[in-house]
């Protein structure tokens, strides 16, 4: 299968006055065509940073320390501004979390969508109305301003803009977190319909592991800037201590470590809070891959089942 | 308090310097009586528009003297009012000289001056004006007026504004509506026009004390409206806070709540606004005096000194040292602005 997104050894840091704080470490994964890769993690673990890195939209205080990102075969991090602007919106697009904040309040939806299209004049209107139909919105929305639409409608507009050029890679950064549960289901169904039609590679970021196991073809768990486990929902169960906590498991001995360890790169990233930690976990733990592109970063559970 | 200073210094060394600069200015003005070489109304009729005196350490023959000295300046050309130095006699600068009797701090009489030179020479650090009065001394005395009027005016405005805004915001209802309509109407007039009109309500010739209080009053009346509105907004939101409810449930009276619980929370804004407003008051007083409607002769104020330059282009060209009063105003203003800016960042609770 064609590789839509390939990330190799990505490390991203945040520059501060004195030193840099690592935000992403040792990120390696691949998304193929027609895959829905879910990335799960708590707030602050680096999910959005990863999404922005792929789009090359990191804020000025962030910097890529090492690694490569290939979108549709193109090395994104090595491209200059002009070339990457050609790709953004066309070969990769992103759906953000709180849609109201990501729409310019002074511009109509129609103007937004016109911008999303990189094309010329002729087929613009048809393409916009077609995209709106795909997401279930009426054409009159084109004349509305963002504040006149509900949250669900706004998110549909963002999805319409994301797929209007039929990009092979669609990134969705917590698209349903700001919406109520019914709208969440509608949006999820919408995304599934789009997948059936266009078979894009999708990176779906969320903090809800249960949702991820239901919709994803593969799911990755992130903690503190590291990917700690990748599993296939339905086929394999998540075994990493962090993943099981996310799934709702309660451990008998939940010890609180006495020392506050800073983000050191030479121990397991979950060491501090892991209920199953052992002395030998205090070394650099590599991510161990399995044949079916799953894997885990844990000594205890690393021996494949 | 100490924490505040530390934070201010950390945030901006410049603002820290501004604070002490202003303190220095205020102290110097307060001690104008003691520091000025001449009384503000001491006229040297034979030395009008005298340029700033040059202070020498090396005399004509190349001798170096530790004690600085000046030469007497005589009129070179009466038509063009130029002066030249008469290098025949040296007049060393002396300290604690004797001079005409004058009052210090409105009470004590003395004949001692901090520094000066013997007659007939004069030590005019910033030149003289049309009547031959030392500008440096007038600037020192003028500083007293300009700096004190602004502070007093600001304090009165702020008290008025806080009380009105507090009452309107806290009690609400009809009282709020009436007060706010009144405030809005006051804010409709451009301040300059309002200032002049209020001044016109009173006779043009008043005694100096009356003029002083009148100016303070007028400046306060113009300034309090804007503050009242903002305080009212703040009180409106603050009175919904939980600690107000707690205070009410303890049975505290409205006034106690207002003064002891709500007002202190507005201080971070108020102090910043206070510092930033003072320049406006200084300018207001200077503008009034500049136009002849403020402090009257012979009492000096920084605006007063500048007033002789209006309309008289020749004067400005001949005696540009008169504009130093403007430079002083500018210096004080810029320091207040710097301090105010830094305060805004330092006192903002978000930055704590």
């Amino acid at each position: 299968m064609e590789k839509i997104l390939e990330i190799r050894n990505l490390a991203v840091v945040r520059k501060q006055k004195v030193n840099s704080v690592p935000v992403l470490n040792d990120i390696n994964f691949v998304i193929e065509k027609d895959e829905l890769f879910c990335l799960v993690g708590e707030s602050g673990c680096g999910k959005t940073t990863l999404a922005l890195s792929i789009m090359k939209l990191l804020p000025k205080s962030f910097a890529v320390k090492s690694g490569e990102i290939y979108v549709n075969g193109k090395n994104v991090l090595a491209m200059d501004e002009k070339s990457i602007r050609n790709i953004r919106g066309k070969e990769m697009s992103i759906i953000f979390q709180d849609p109201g904040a990501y729409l310019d309040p002074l511009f109509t939806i129609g103007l937004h969508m016109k911008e999303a299209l990189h094309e010329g004049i002729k087929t613009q209107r048809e393409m916009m109305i077609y995209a709106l139909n795909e997401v279930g919105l009426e054409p009159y929305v084109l004349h509305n301003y963002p504040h006149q639409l509900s949250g669900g409608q706004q998110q549909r507009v963002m999805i319409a803009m994301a797929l209007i050029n039929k990009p092979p890679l669609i990134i969705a950064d917590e698209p349903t977190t700001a919406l109520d549960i019914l709208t969440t289901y509608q949006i999820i169904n919408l995304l599934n319909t789009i997948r059936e039609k266009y078979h894009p590679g999708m990176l779906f970021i969320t903090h809800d592991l249960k949702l991820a196991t239901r919709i994803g073809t593969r799911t990755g768990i992130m903690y503190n800037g590291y990917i700690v486990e990748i599993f296939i929902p339905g086929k394999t169960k998540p075994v990493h201590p962090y993943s099981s906590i996310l799934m709702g498991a309660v451990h008998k001995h939940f010890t609180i470590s006495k020392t506050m360890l800073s983000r050191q790169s030479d121990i397991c990233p979950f060491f501090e809070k892991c209920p199953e930690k052992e002395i030998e976990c205090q070394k650099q733990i590599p991510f161990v891959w399995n044949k079916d592109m799953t894997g885990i970063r844990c000594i205890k559970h690393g021996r494949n089942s | 308090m100490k924490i505040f200073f530390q934070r201010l210094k950390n945030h901006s060394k410049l603002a820290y310097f501004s604070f002490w600069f202003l303190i220095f200015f205020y102290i110097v003005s307060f001690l104008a009586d003691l520091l000025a070489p001449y009384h503000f109304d001491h006229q040297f009729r034979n030395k009008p528009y005298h340029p700033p005196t040059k202070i020498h350490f090396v005399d004509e023959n190349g001798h170096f003297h530790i004690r600085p000295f000046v030469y007497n300046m005589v009129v070179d050309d009466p038509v063009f009012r130029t002066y030249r130095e008469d290098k025949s006699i040296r007049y060393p600068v002396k300290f604690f000289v004797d001079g005409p009797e004058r009052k210090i701090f409105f009470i004590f009489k003395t004949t001692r001056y901090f520094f000066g030179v013997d007659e007939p020479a004069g030590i005019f650090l910033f030149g003289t004006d049309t009547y031959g009065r030392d500008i440096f001394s007038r600037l020192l005395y003028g500083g007293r007026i300009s700096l004190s009027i602004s502070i007093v005016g600001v304090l009165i405005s702020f008290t008025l504004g806080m009380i009105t805004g507090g009452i309107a915001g806290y009690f609400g209802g009809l009282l709020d509506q009436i007060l706010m309509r009144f405030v809005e109407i006051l804010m409709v007039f451009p301040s300059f026009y309002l200032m002049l009109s209020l001044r016109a309500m009173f006779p043009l010739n008043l005694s100096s004390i009356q003029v002083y209080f009148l100016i303070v009053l007028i400046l306060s009346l113009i300034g309090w409206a804007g503050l009242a509105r903002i305080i009212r907004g703040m009180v409106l939101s603050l009175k919904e806070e939980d600690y107000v409810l707690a205070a009410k449930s303890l049975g505290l009276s409205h006034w106690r709540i207002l003064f002891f619980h709500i007002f202190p929370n507005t201080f971070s804004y108020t102090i910043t606004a206070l510092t930033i407003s003072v320049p406006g008051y200084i300018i207001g007083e200077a503008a009034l005096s500049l136009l002849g409607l403020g402090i009257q002769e012979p009492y000096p104020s920084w605006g007063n000194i500048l007033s002789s330059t209006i309309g008289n282009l020749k004067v400005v060209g001949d005696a540009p040292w008169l504009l130093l009063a403007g430079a002083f105003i500018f210096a004080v203003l810029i320091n207040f602005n710097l301090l105010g800016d830094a305060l805004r960042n330092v006192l903002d609770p978000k930055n704590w």
Partner: protein
Amino acid sequence: MKKLILKRLLQLIPMLIGMSFVSFIIIQSSPGDYFAQMKMNPEISPETIEMMRTSFGLDRPLFVQYFFWLKNICKMDFGISFAYHIPVTTLIKFRLKNTLCLAIFSLFLSWVIAIPLAVLAGYKEGTLIDKIFSLFAYLSISLPSFFVALLFVYFISKTGVLPLGGTRSIFDIDANAFLIFKDYMRHLLVPGLVLCFVNIGWLFRLMKNNFIEVYNTPYILAAWARGLPASSVIFKHTLRNALNPMFTILGMEIGSILNGAALTEIICGWPGMGSLILEAVLSHDLYLVMGSLVISGFLLIIGNLIGDILIALFDPRIRLT
């Protein structure tokens, strides 16, 4: 939209009434009778004074006086100036034109200079250009307007490049309209430039802060994410959003320009409303003072109204709720 304008216009009326009432109170509190000055003037006969008295209803109670005065105001009759012996309205009309020309000129100039520089400084925040511009803006904010005017007048008087004082030079009688206009503009330059300089500082700062704030919003990030070119993101989206709150500022600036213009006019010798009210106060010409006050307040109200209308026009969030 039309409803909005109508609502604002209706709110205008009590404001105008309140303002006129306060002006009336101010003038009434003046010491002495209206006509104390006039009585001392031998040129005016006692009969004229009596006539004016009744026409202004001074023998009637206060509120009635107020209504008479208000009625006259609505007829654009502000009374007779003591000093000039001509209707106040005539004087105001002439001076107002000059002040408005000055105000519009410096407003235009300061916006044309401050806004682009602020955008540049905002985009290149932290660089040398930003620091230089910000320093200049700081000077502009701190220097008092009369001091700038005095300095400028001093330099112009030394170099003699531009004319000072008045609106016209002594000329051939048959100068054509274009030459007259050019002469007017040359006279306008000195007070105009001073006023512009004083205004630029806070305008620059405000616009720069707006620009930076907008630039850091999520929807600008989304614009980048859509693959828009930099010119589009900056000029189409950021600038547009940053300019939005400036429209209300534009309306309110009318008030502050009037203020700044007054002192500048006086120092530069430009015959406008500021010089007028000063002369009126100095000569205790009460009707003139009152008229100037009311007109200046009226202009400020109109300015605020224009600001409100502009922002409703350009911001769909306000227009369509």
